[in-house]
């Protein structure tokens, strides 16, 4: 009986056609799409009706659309050609594995046939082989506040799975599959070509999608399933999503499904049958993420989220975010002590629901705003859910926390490029570290500098002010300045706009004994003159705390602004100095080398002995080899 009530309660949101009584967003671009998936031909035949409103104050004389799927239309597209430059081992794709969108009908306001007015444009790189953006000249301009309707018939040939979209055998992930209008802001179109490192940017709106496919397929999508109509061999699913800026669908006949209600959000987990051992891990991770955001920033505003675990042959579909829809990734037998898959990836993609989904910044122009904030949130949730010291892994007794992994990435390329850049402007191999790891460390260091309470306030206000809108870096920085008691421009200038590196070192530590005469008592007193020399090895200036500990247990703390490159501390005390440490609380995660942040008067050989034993074990065995080898 209880389970029946629970099922009814879970179904309540889908019984009504309207999800939100009061719109959460401006709803600029509203789509009604009827699509049929041809599983044999790997093709979608669809008709799309878009109601778009000019939300600007300008007259608009042309419209621009993304045709993302055309990135896979030929090997010379910007996406594929640059992929080969960035990653030289990227193979050319055989013809049958290419994809593309083909517009067959384009009618404005049910009157003007504009099919022949469509023109491919390359606003970013002038690559004539790239057809990921089109513009359409309008017969008459759209007035501010005016709505236009566009009826677009198109075919979408799905590529063999690439960039988290396409098919793999009988598995389909439909991402960026329909012509999607760009964003008109500040008197111009933001409709960039599809680059290997760039992601997406679109206006909020409602989506009604009627999706027809073979009856045996199990599906998941961005929207809520309102109803299903089944025929002999095909079925049509009616989905609705409100206040989102994209719509993704997944379909595979072999999916297993698990549904759970977490803090009022219905979680639908679709997983490969052989990954049933991981379903609990997925659920634990998504539960941790939902609950954390609930307390940290704001409850998840949508009624449902779909979590997809792709089969191994479609692993390239894994690790992606779409509104109310995320893909994880797991491999059978992946040890529970190593939480990169599926835990970290699930939490990361869920965090994108906020930093991309709701705070819909321009991922192409300012990728750090979505990936960096998401990484920052991921590390907070991982620490909270799995413990701070070994949140990512404790396999083979090696403790790896989420932030350690970001630090490793940052350490490899700390000064290759700056953070605040468009995704296509990064130097080779600089996108990953400057978009994911380094921004996470920047925000975590900021949190430690301002204090958690102030940082939490910043994050909450950032969300409240900019939810269901398109915040920019300048908006975030202005918000920080308005809340923080200190001007933080000096920090962001260095952290976001420069390639400066931060590294402090305790260079030397010395102590000399001196005997002085106490004039009042007439007795000889032992005094110790200690000197600590601290160096700033990098050019990033950041104020730090210095702690000196003495043999009698006293600790002297001092702040240093870090402006000069060398700082000398002299103490005259009755006890000998034992050790000195820069940033004793380990708050400055941007410090490249923490190991050199301290120095002790007496060397500690024990760690070396312990390490020696560990290495001896490995080496002596490796000299022996595997039996007989």
């Amino acid at each position: 009986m209880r389970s029946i009530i629970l099922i009814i309660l879970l179904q309540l949101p889908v019984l009504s056609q309207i999800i939100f009584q009061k719109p959460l967003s401006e709803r600029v671009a509203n789509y009604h799409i009827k699509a049929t998936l041809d599983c044999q031909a790997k093709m979608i035949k669809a008709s799309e009706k878009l109601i778009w409103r000019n939300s600007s104050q300008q007259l608009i004389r042309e419209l621009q659309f993304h045709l993302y799927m055309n990135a896979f239309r030929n090997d010379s597209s910007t996406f594929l050609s640059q992929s080969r430059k960035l990653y030289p081992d990227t193979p050319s794709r055989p013809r049958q594995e290419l994809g593309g969108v083909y517009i067959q009908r384009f009618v404005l306001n049910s009157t003007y046939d504009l099919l022949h007015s469509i023109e491919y444009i390359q606003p970013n790189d002038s690559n004539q082989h790239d057809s990921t953006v089109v513009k359409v000249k309008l017969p008459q301009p759209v007035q501010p506040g005016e709505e236009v309707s566009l009826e677009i018939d198109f075919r979408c040939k799905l590529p063999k799975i690439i960039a988290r979209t396409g098919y793999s055998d009988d598995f389909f992930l439909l991402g960026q599959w329909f012509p999607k209008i760009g964003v008109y802001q500040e008197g111009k179109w933001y409709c960039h070509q599809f680059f290997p490192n760039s992601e997406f940017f679109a206006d909020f709106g409602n989506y009604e999608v009627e999706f027809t496919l073979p009856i045996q397929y199990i599906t998941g999508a961005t929207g809520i399933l309102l109803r299903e109509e089944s025929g002999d061999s095909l079925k049509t699913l009616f989905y609705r999503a409100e206040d989102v800026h994209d719509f993704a669908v997944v379909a595979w006949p072999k999916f297993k499904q698990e549904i759970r209600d977490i803090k009022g959000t219905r979680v639908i987990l679709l997983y490969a049958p052989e990954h049933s051992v991981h379903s609990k891990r997925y659920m634990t991770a998504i539960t941790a993420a939902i609950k954390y955001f609930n307390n940290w920033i704001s409850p998840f505003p949508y009624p449902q989220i779909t979590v997809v675990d792709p089969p191994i042959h479609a692993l390239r579909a894994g690790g992606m975010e779409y509104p109310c829809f995320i893909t994880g990734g797991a491999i059978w037998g992946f040890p529970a002590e190593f939480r990169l898959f599926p835990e970290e990836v699930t939490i990361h993609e869920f965090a994108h629901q906020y930093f991309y989904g709701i705070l819909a910044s321009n991922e192409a122009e300012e990728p750090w705003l979505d990936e960096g904030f998401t990484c920052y949130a991921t590390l907070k949730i991982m620490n909270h859910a799995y413990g701070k010291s070994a949140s990512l892994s404790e396999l083979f007794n090696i403790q790896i926390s989420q932030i350690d992994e970001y630090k490793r990435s940052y350490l490899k390329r700390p000064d290759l490029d700056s953070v605040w850049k468009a995704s296509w402007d990064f130097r080779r191999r600089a996108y990953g570290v400057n978009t994911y790891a380094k921004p996470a460390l920047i925000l975590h260091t900021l949190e430690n500098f301002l204090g958690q309470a102030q940082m939490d306030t910043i994050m909450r206000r950032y969300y409240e002010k900019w939810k269901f809108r398109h915040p920019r870096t300048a908006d975030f920085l202005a918000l920080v300045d308005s809340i923080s008691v200190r001007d933080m421009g000096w920090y962001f200038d260095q952290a976001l706009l420069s390639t400066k590196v931060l590294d402090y070192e305790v260079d030397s530590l010395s102590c000399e004994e001196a005997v002085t005469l106490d004039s009042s008592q007439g007795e000889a007193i032992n005094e110790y003159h200690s000197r600590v020399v601290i160096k700033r090895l990098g050019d990033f200036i950041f104020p730090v705390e210095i702690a000196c500990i003495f043999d009698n247990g006293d600790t002297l703390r001092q702040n240093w602004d870090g402006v000069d490159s060398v700082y000398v501390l002299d103490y005259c005390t009755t006890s000998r100095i034992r050790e000195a440490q820069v940033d004793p609380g380990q708050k400055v995660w941007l410090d490249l080398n923490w190991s050199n942040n301290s120095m002790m008067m007496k060397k500690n050989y024990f760690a070396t002995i312990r390490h020696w034993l560990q290495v001896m074990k490995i080496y002596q065995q490796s000299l022996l080899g595997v039996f007989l080898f």
Partner: protein
Amino acid sequence: MIIKSIGWGLIKTFKQGTLIFLFWSVNLIISLIFLFPYLSAFNHFFSERIVSRLLEQANVYTYYTEFFHFFARPLQIARGNLLLGRLLILIISVILSAGVISTFLRDDQLNSKKFGADSWHFLGRMLRLGIFQLFIVIFFLMVSIVLYLPVIYFLPSLFVENIYFYFLIGWAGLAYLFVLFAFLVFDLSRIQLVKQDSPSILKTIWMAVLSLWRNPVQIYLLYFLLSLIWAAVILVYWTLQSYLSNNSFTGILLELVILQFFVGIQYWIRLSRFSALINISGIGENQEMAGNIG
């Protein structure tokens, strides 16, 4: 017969404790020599830093990352040294194998003069045999990989993941047996070489194949069982060390002693394979060793 031969081999080898001691010493000395630059770098990076206290308790990833990053150059040299050490011990093993085999064939206590003379006498041929073996093993490994390629090609449509995993384990097992065959033939060749003092290594390989042909199942099983015994020893060692705490100086010392004990046991099993093979293949029976040895 197989169990008897293994037992015979283990007892005979146990009696040659000096041989086990010799190999264990070489292993330890090379480890100490070649690990020194690496550990020196580690000590230099950490010993005067406070983080070393953390590393006494756990393997903290961040500090190792920093160590590997900021000591990349010296560590590269140290890693090169480690590889050199492995190569050196391989060569020493090949060189000494003639002395080991002749000791077992004589069924005599180790005589250092004879051991040295035998090792010297067969030096060139043993090295040639070792190089030849290396090529054959690589060839066998490549054949195993080529046989595996169709599986990778058909992976998406044919296999579900867990079945594929079991298949992979099965394939690795078969590849192991396949490569084991190459080792088996070459171990028999070494015994034939010392027994016959043949100038041609190809002839000794052929003779080894013939002795394997005469008694393939038992010889193969013997070899396989010995490798299982070795695996069991490793398992016991891993289990034992998992119960030991190495966060105290005494704990570290104890673990080091146990490690040496198990290294010795492994050499015991490895050396006993020659003795057991001599017994089961009948190479040592009713035959005189070539007169010019020792």
